[in-house]
């Protein structure tokens, strides 16, 4: 078999043909649904609606978000919620909605939900599963295609690569762009002291750039995945604490579930529930 054919076979086995436990997808479903509620809850609440269209949009959002978190008709709800979130994003991009909806955190949340809807995210930890059990029918098998999860992993890799590419210039590497960002965020606040250390900003800029390029590839490799996940989580935790990017940070952290071995997540939950390990 030629190297190209071997590579194609590996991609095929990793992506479109891969199957595994549906529990990580279920955890992502609950996490992303909760983030959507927190991000848009106070903007789409029906009492704020100025038009009937806004009222329907708000109502659809809350019904779909609730069904997403609870896992009721889960895949449809997740796809619907992703559609609503992406609609808000594109409305803003076309200057028809709130400018804040056109930001990267809204896109990654909507895209994450749409890709999650390609998984069997309702088979675990869901009302769908509970209803099947309550009805006395066989509960859905907690096993399904991982295609959506693999695409989420690719989305994270693309995000890291392209954001690193955007930072690959002297203005960023020299610390100037980070200093400008910190001027906006920290002026008049306690952390303004960081602006007095340009060498620290330059060092931090180089570290961020190297880490983002590395993450773009490391999260997709078995060899580096564990280190990449730890590094990435620390990176996003520091973003959360140091910059006003909390929705983006927690969304990406939840999407990291797509990088984990589904079988390991399944076994971990079994252990936490005190269930015996399979022989």
């Amino acid at each position, binding site marked *: 078999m030629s190297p190209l054919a071997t590579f194609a076979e590996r991609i095929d086995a990793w*992506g479109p043909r891969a199957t595994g436990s549906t529990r990580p997808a279920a955890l992502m479903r609950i996490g992303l649904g909760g983030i959507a509620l927190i991000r848009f809850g106070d903007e789409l609440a029906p009492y704020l609606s100025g038009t009937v269209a806004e009222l329907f949009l708000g109502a659809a959002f809350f019904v779909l978000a609730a069904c997403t978190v609870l896992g009721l008709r889960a895949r449809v709800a997740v796809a619907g919620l992703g559609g609503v979130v992406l609609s808000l994003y594109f409305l803003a991009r076309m200057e028809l909605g709130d400018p804040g909806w056109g930001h990267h955190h809204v896109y990654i949340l909507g895209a994450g939900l749409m890709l999650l809807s390609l998984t069997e995210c309702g088979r675990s930890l869901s009302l769908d599963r509970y209803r099947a059990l309550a009805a006395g029918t066989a509960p859905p*098998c907690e096993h399904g295609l991982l295609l959506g999860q*693999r695409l989420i992993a690719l989305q994270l890799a693309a995000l890291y690569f*392209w954001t690193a*590419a955007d930072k690959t210039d002297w203005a960023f590497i020299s610390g*100037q*762009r980070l200093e*400008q960002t910190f001027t*906006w965020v920290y002026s008049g606040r306690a952390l303004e002291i960081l602006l007095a250390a340009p060498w620290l900003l330059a060092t931090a800029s180089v570290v961020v750039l190297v880490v983002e390029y590395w993450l773009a590839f490391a999260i997709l490799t078995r060899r580096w995945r564990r280190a990449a996940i730890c590094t990435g989580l620390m990176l996003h935790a520091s973003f959360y604490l140091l910059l*006003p990017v909390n929705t983006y940070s927690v969304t990406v952290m939840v999407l990291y579930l797509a990088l984990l071995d589904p079988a390991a997540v399944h076994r971990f939950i079994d252990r936490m529930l005190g269930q015996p390990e399979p022989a």
Partner: protein
Amino acid sequence: MSLNDAATARPSARPARDTRILVHRVVFAALAAFILLSPAPGQVFGKHSPWLREWVMYSGVGTGLPQGAFHIHDAAGTIIGTLTPLEAMGIAHYPNTEHYRFEGWMRTTGDLWRHATAACDRLENGHRLSFAGRVGTRDGWLDMQVEDVCPATGDAS
């Protein structure tokens, strides 16, 4: 026996299963290509589209902000006071979010007055406001000296 096993066991189900795998491959390839390459038109070739997300987050935050000192001059030109950019705006700190809707954000190097409207409003007759420092741009800091920041009445519209 799972549904998948059952499908494998029945020869008649084989074409349907093959079709399903083919669909999965096509969907995966199309979405993977979109995810990986869709930022390229904007980020590589400068062809921006609202439909294609570019991963340039936070790249514009801090641009258009001055860093330096605003000086108040009396009629003789003597410096009688110095203000930080925040003091010139009359605020304690910049808002948490919505950088692009910030009133003090300079769109061009010629509209520093946007940042100093509060100081300009407080300026006494015959006094002048100057600025010495730099302004953030996408390419780094740009040195900036402005002798008379405040526009003449009616020029600021």
